[in-house]
């Protein structure tokens, strides 16, 4: 009996099996957010032009915050819908994109080729994403005029879907 092999093998195998077993019955896609009906975590970030944006100053209008990245396929899919929504509600709601685990240069060239929407903020250390409990991209938070999170959406959205939520907040 080679004890070393047994020890190393067990150290790998047992935790692996425990983790896999624990993960049953949890849908990786169903994510409840404790933020719903709570005040949105505040942030003050810089946009791509270096202008500061403070969430607190956006009170008074509904805010959509979308975490996205250029490497994320659903983000690319929903990009036109968000552009359309941002145009439709210009001046009545704020549309904020927050860069999630991505490079500012890639984001810039993406926006240069496809056009942007709203304001795109850089979150260099991912602190805001952590504060919002972001699990993956895209994730979108809708915040009412008083700064309370009312809805969280995981995955790509269509224009009608976004409009439906924004209309309810106006």
């Amino acid at each position, binding site marked *: *009996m*080679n*004890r070393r*092999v*047994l020890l190393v*093998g*067990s150290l790998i*195998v047992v935790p*692996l*099996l*425990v*983790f*896999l*077993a*624990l*993960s*049953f019955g*949890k*849908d*990786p*896609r169903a*994510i409840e957010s404790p933020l719903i009906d709570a005040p949105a975590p505040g942030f003050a970030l810089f946009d791509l032009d270096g202008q500061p944006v403070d969430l607190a100053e956006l009170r008074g209008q509904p805010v959509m915050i979308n975490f996205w*990245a250029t*490497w*994320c*396929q659903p983000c*690319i899919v929903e990009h*036109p819908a968000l552009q359309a929504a941002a145009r439709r509600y210009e001046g009545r709601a704020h549309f904020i994109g927050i860069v*999630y*685990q*991505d*490079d500012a240069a890639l984001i810039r060239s993406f926006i240069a*080729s*496809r056009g942007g929407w709203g304001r795109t903020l850089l979150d260099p250390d991912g602190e805001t994403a952590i504060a919002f*409990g972001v*699990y*993956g*991209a895209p994730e979108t938070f809708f915040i009412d005029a008083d700064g309370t999170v009312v809805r969280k959406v995981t995955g790509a959205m269509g224009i009608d879907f976004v409009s439906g939520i924004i209309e309810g907040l106006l």
Partner: protein
Amino acid sequence: MATLGQLCVLAGLLICAVGTPIAFAAGASRSARGLVWSRRLALAFAGAMLAANLVMEYALITHDFSVSYVAQVGSLATPWHITVVSLWSSLEGSILFWGLVLGGFTAALVLLQRRGHEDYLAYTIGTLLATGLFFSFLIAGPANPFQAISPVPTDGPGPNPLLQNHILMIIHPPMLYLGYVGMSVPFAMAVAALLRGQLGATWLKPLRNWLMVPIGFLTLGIMLGGWWSYEVLGWGGYWAWDPVENASFLPWLTGIAALHSAVVQQRRGTLKAWTVILIMVTFLLTILGTFLTRSGVVNSVHSFTQSPIGPLFLSFLGITLIGVVVLLAMRIDTLVSEPAEDAIVAREGAFLINNLLLVTLTFTVLIGTLFPIIAEAVRGVKVSVGEPYFNRMAVPVFFGLLLMMGIGPALPWGRASREELRRALLRPLPAALAGGVLAAFVFSFDWQILLTGALAGYALWVTLDQGIRPARARARGGESVPRALGSSLTRSPRRTGAYLVHLGVIVTFAAIAASSAFQTASEGTLAPGEELLVGDYRLVFEGAEHERQPHREVEKAVVRVERGGRQLAILEPSLNQYDTQREPIMTPAVRTSLGHDLYLTLGGVGDDGRAGLRAILTPAVVWIWIGVLVMVAGTALCLIEPRTARSRAAATAAEAATP
């Protein structure tokens, strides 16, 4: 029909239940009669699986909706050839197909290893039948595709539209299954070696071949998956480090490592334990990968939804994992390496570093894939690991692998003098310089591109130099050049094949580097007659067409492609709306050339006839597929018996036959 299918599956289950203990007992007692029976039962298992699959095919083709799986994936409107392949389009069917492939591999092993190896064969068959026991149990019970449905529906929803959308989806899954399931054979052979307590040169040779076969299929399967995703999903890429992609990549990495370790063992008699452990890990990773994709525990674009087989798969994985650890702990010390006469230097060292790199990459990708599960279990938080993590971790390892592919084969086996080493390593340097300069000239002065070019140039020179060395020696000996090339192919196919594989890897690496570093994209919403510019292409939108096909609506944009005022092609990217599905599926139109691909997708057509078009120019994509095909061709070449060995074997057989 449902009952007949059930009976075939139950027969398979029974055969495995009986055959497993018989084969292991035959192995332990070295009984010749027991081995004969194990062989028969293995063939019977293959027969039962074949019959069950044929019954299912018959039910699918005749639209027998009383069979649950047909009711789930069949549809009267589906074209005939799609109906045939919908066997593996959904969970239950794919497990049934898995059974067929396992049966096929078991039968092939029994039929091809007819002579010799009596010491090992019974244990090998026993292990394969034990695996078969699990899968036929799955098919018979929890993932039963043969449930009788009543009342019988008149029509079904049809298979997943992605399957119907492209030919590659038809051949990609079976290739992947052949790779996955095929890993059971080297695993079973390694188990036999451990139980027997020896892994000699005679067993190593078939082991290496049986390892190479699934690696070849896996290579092809992974490539076809990437190609499919590129041609069908419409995002312009071919690899996204999705958990399911990672699941197929992990056993590939360890399989390659095992193969290289086997080569060292064959040459030097060392690294025996490495070979065995790597083979076992490879098999375990195929099971882990299947579990991850079938159980719904990871978030992936491909994964099947939650299914009842998850816990069973986990139990199987658990039993196998624990079994392997215990078996290794008990028996690994019996696999003593033959004492190496000198320290590990030169080529063995390069092989070892290569294996460490592959194992490191395996661990990194595995951790990245499992991290969301671990984080949730430990801290109760949901996290995702994105593409940037994998790219950051993988790129340095790729550089390392490319470097070793250049250095390794340049080095001599065994001990080498300092002077020899210096000469072997310095000679290809001009090729590295040329590669770097070429890459910088064609692309840009980015250091990663320069490094890729230089390493690829170095490795390419060494590969070609080593690959044609036998032919050159023959040509120098007086043979004509074509004849020398031909006879070096038939006399040392393994050597030529191995370097052909390396050539393919170098081409693929370089193409991946170029295609991921330099993409140009452009997009716009165009009215008919308007144009979009990308690179030096002019794309003129001629108009949209709408077509109603039996099972789908097709919205198509007709785009004229021009360059330098000359019309090159008409491309027709489309959006397909299947009747049974909610979301439309994008089908890009791709114009492939040796230099770059023009990739066109249609986002949608508005009521005013304006179309949202997106064009991407990606360099060198086609070389990825070409490189992989070269790898697969090289793998196939490696499996050919050398001419001399073959005639010698025939002579020995003839000698044995004469009294």
